[in-house]
């Protein structure tokens, strides 16, 4: 895989058809919009090294309720834009005056972005079996730009990790991660995720993580 560090305005290709994410076209040529890693495949994508999470419909995210209005929970989703969880998107029918019984200010939820309008009004939903209030476990935050690496190609990294550390893990696209399991298992999971975040842009990471887990487990037993 061909990779290169680029800064905004770098010429990436003279073929406008190869413009991917993090790029723009001017006069038929492709330029970088971001400071990051250019990934040359059919399309050229630039992966940023930093930046804020911008919600997109369908994203699974972890949010924290920060306010309650007449019919909405206002949810912090680690983004410049707050999420709105409407009362009708709660899995069961509840009354407006009972909202704080189900989700209080400070409650953490696993949720999904239902819709984002052009003014960046973000609608959330809890209408899915795997979504809902978080009662146990731990939540950590990493940069959202590292999330694709943590998930891996087709979920390879995260499914390996779940199996190896024997934990339940939910990765939010906004960089928040929920981990639930035994105390030692959770600690190992935290350590491993910290390592993945640190070395996110190195090659052959999955293999190195497998070795790391093997070594860590060897010490414990």
């Amino acid at each position, binding site marked *: 895989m061909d990779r290169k560090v680029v800064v905004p305005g770098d010429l990436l290709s003279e073929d406008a058809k190869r413009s991917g994410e993090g790029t723009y076209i001017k006069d038929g040529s492709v330029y970088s919009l971001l400071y990051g890693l250019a990934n040359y495949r059919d399309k050229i994508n630039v992966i940023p090294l930093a930046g804020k999470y911008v919600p997109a419909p369908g994203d699974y995210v972890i949010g924290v309720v920060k306010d309650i209005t007449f019919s909405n929970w206002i949810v912090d989703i680690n983004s*410049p*834009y707050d999420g709105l969880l409407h009362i009708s998107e709660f899995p069961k029918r509840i009354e407006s005056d009972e909202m704080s019984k189900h989700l209080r200010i400070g409650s953490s939820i696993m949720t999904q972005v239902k819709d984002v309008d052009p003014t960046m009004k973000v609608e959330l939903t809890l209408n899915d079996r795997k979504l809902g209030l978080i009662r146990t476990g*731990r939540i950590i935050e990493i940069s959202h730009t590292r999330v694709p690496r943590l998930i891996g190609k087709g979920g390879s990294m995260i499914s390996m990790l779940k199996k190896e550390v024997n934990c339940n893990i939910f990765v939010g696209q906004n960089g928040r991660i929920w981990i639930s399991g035994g105390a030692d298992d959770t600690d190992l999971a935290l350590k491993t995720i910290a390592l993945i975040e640190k070395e996110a842009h190195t090659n052959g990471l999955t293999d190195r993580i497998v070795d790391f887990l093997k070594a860590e487990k060897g010490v414990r037993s």
Partner: protein
Amino acid sequence: MIAMDKTDISFFKDGLRLDGRRADELRPVKIEVGILERADGSCYIEMGGNKVIAAVYGPREVHPRHLQEVTRAIVRYRYNMASFSVEERKRPGPDRRSYELSKVSREALEPVILTSFFPRSVIDVFVEVLQADAGTRTAGINAAAVALADAGIPMKSMISSCAAGKVADTIVLDPMKEEDNFGQADLPIAMTPNGNITLMQMDGSLSPDQFHEAVEMAMRGAREIYELQRKALVDKYSQMVAEPGKVEVHASD
């Protein structure tokens, strides 16, 4: 401009300037990326005797709310000189000069920032001058451009800034304090690497020919600075790959 006797100061000695530079030579530049823990992007720059820190926050929610734009992000730029940045203590706080510099610097950077990607948000840029030695606005803009890139903000290109001046009827690049104070003209510019100028100011007087010469020279200086900005950003990444352990990771409960 202080009117003065031409014999009082000589700006050149053996064809070189007071600090030993050629007429078209920059002062030494040092750029460090990502030096602030709390900011989303940051940069420290030294251009000769200038020492400047730039910090970028955002995109984030706009406060106060009435400044919000529905279709795009707003950009706020604050240029500030520390009270100890100049010889005589500067009275702290914004003044006429810093308001103007904040405005022109913001307008120098705004054209390349893709504000439409982040409606209803703000990108805050703070530039603090720790030590001043003529050309702080150009140093501030250079640092701010690097800090914006470091914050992961989408931009059409980088912005680089440099000044040219006139002393003893000679056009010089990147004037230092003595040349700025006792010189005949100062012309700072900011531009994209391919030569689109986003800032141009001038004080003093230049003939049309001198003006063209000064602009050409400042543009060459800005291109040199662009290469240094680029190198600083690329080096930061190489460092991250070479010594991954050095980059701190925050895992909060």
